């Protein structure tokens, strides 16, 4: 920047260091507590230096929270959501941005509105749809009288049923449905110069050829940013998995296990194990963000000129 006075630079560093402290302290405390023994962690005031019990605690948390299979579940869900969302979002954003058809704006709003009403707000009814995701179609068939017709003709009763409870599909699909990705892609696609589309038209490319040959390669950075966002947010999902998995042993995710790691009602207050567990749970998304942050930031700063 412009002013280069050493004093001002000093203030800047001071403020930034303070900010870093604020951001890092919770991580540090988690690490420190996770590395201490039960005695150390129960001391008041707690020592701010890590101790030597990290691995025992990690191991204890690992078994108590049954983190192995839960981590795998979390990965499956996070990757499933990420891949699904990127696919869906890029396709629908492509349609919305590059095609001219009457219902374009209606479709955009239909999808976009979902952005405003996160899952948490419609928990209860969403649950029942998860029990039978085909219910809407059944109802449509029923009200149109098709069910009755088919039954009268063939004697077969149409009963659509697709239970998503306790399944990866159930964990993944509803998270894929939301509009964040579509919105981000739309924002990016709008920065693509008209001329590029036109050039490809002049070159004789079909819309899908334009999509695969030009648009997708160009949105690589955005894809990475979106992937980061999606991975992190689906990894961190709490309420939805909590709701949709009654069979936690098989379909639980790590974040759900946090509560199980908190010292139990009549157990010892072994916060060291809890924190070690938290450490394990935090790590994958943290690594993803730390690793992707360059693209992540760049992908969001789509400088449209």
């Amino acid at each position, binding site marked *: 920047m412009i002013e280069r006075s050493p004093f001002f630079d000093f203030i800047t560093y001071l403020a930034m260091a303070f900010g870093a402290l604020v951001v890092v302290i919770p991580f540090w405390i988690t690490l420190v507590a996770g590395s201490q023994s039960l005695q150390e962690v129960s001391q008041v005031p707690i020592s701010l230096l890590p101790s030597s019990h990290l691995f025992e605690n990690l191991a204890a948390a690992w078994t108590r929270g049954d983190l192995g299979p839960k981590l795998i579940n979390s990965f499956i869900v996070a990757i499933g959501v990420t891949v699904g969302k990127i696919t869906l979002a890029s396709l629908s954003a492509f349609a919305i941005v590059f095609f001219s058809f009457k219902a374009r704006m209606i479709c955009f709003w239909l999808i976009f509105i979902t952005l405003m009403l996160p899952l948490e707000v419609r928990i209860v009814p969403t649950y029942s749809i998860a029990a039978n995701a085909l219910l809407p179609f059944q109802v449509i068939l029923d009200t149109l009288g098709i069910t009755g017709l088919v039954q009268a003709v063939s004697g077969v009763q149409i009963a659509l049923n697709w239970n998503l409870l306790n399944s990866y599909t159930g964990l993944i699909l509803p998270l894929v449905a939301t509009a964040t990705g579509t919105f981000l892609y739309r924002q990016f696609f709008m920065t693509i110069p008209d*001329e590029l589309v036109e050039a490809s038209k002049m*070159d004789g490319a079909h819309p899908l050829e334009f999509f695969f040959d030009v648009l997708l390669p160009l949105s690589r950075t955005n894809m990475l940013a979106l992937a980061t966002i999606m991975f992190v947010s689906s990894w961190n999902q709490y309420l939805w998995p909590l709701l949709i998995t009654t069979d936690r042993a098989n379909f639980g995710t790590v974040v759900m296990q946090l509560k199980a790691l908190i010292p139990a009602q009549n157990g010892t207050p072994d916060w060291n194990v809890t924190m070690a567990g938290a450490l394990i749970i935090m790590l994958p998304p943290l690594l993803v963000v730390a690793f992707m942050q360059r693209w992540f930031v760049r992908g969001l700063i789509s400088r449209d000129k």
Partner: protein
Amino acid sequence: MAQITIKGVKKNYAKTAVIHGVDVNIEAGEFVVILGPSGCGKSTLLRMIAGLEEITEGEIAIGGTVVNKLEPRERGCAMVFQNYALYPHMTVRKNIGYALKVAKVPKAERDARVMKVAQSVSLEPFLDRRPGELSGGQRQRVAMARAMVREPKVFLFDEPFSNLDAKLRVAMRSEVRRLHRDLGVTSVFVTHDQIEAMTLADKLIIMNAGKVEQIGKPTEVYNNPASRFVADFIGSPAMNLFEGEFDAEGHFVHGAGGRMNVSQLNGVRQPGRKVVLGVRPEGVRRTGADTHGAIPAVVDYVEELGASRLIHADANGSRIVALDNDSAELKSGTPVHLSLADSALHLFSLEDGRRISH
């Protein structure tokens, strides 16, 4: 190589009319330049030819086929865009070859054709670079190569040089000219740079506000502008234009009572007729005070152009610019005398701006 016929073409965006009915005939192999101020509809017209914009009314035929309903890829046109519109993620080779790939031309043939085109515009050393690693001029050449490789019937250029600096522009101009000479493909070139237009065109189309003002050879347009608009638009420094009327003695009265002796306009000097008198700066010369018909003026400032200079002066309330080769210093406020070259006078109707022949 194909003839292009534009018949009664109009274009509306929603309610606003942008092209008000254009009729143009472009011969096969001709190099046509469309020139006009920003927003006059040049690009729109070009894009209608290309098929990138729907034609609201009228008809465009390429090589005898009406193309109104055809997709861009079916029209056999290639286009060079203002900002090149190269695919940023593809190498030069892939950029040039993309149209062929889409057309499912076999790889071997594709490579050969790309190579041939690349050679013809000296791009071989850069075939494996991305557009981002090229200079402006090189990018421009890639854009041209991309258009050439399809061996189209028509080339369309939309201000292809406007992002280049002056030196490069001159160079690219001669490259385009060479290209046209070599391939002889019908070309339509849009620009708002008149030097570009003058130097490139076989046929010049001057557009203004969605209408064609004049069609003709560049020299024809320069020497016989069909309207006040064209007169003002073509030529740099711009033509001096004086609004005024003829008095009883046939003098041209303008500004704060300035009078000019314009006897050469004999025949059109009806007293009271309101006209615009035009004369190019090179038709205005410094002269002695005693020259017949000399116009007294006061120097405002002088612009040094290197080889020559422009004298900006005030003649009885009208601004007048004269081209001068003398190198003596002329301070602001110096009185001078100017005379108008006989042959260089243009006359336009004040009402509708059309040329008045004399």
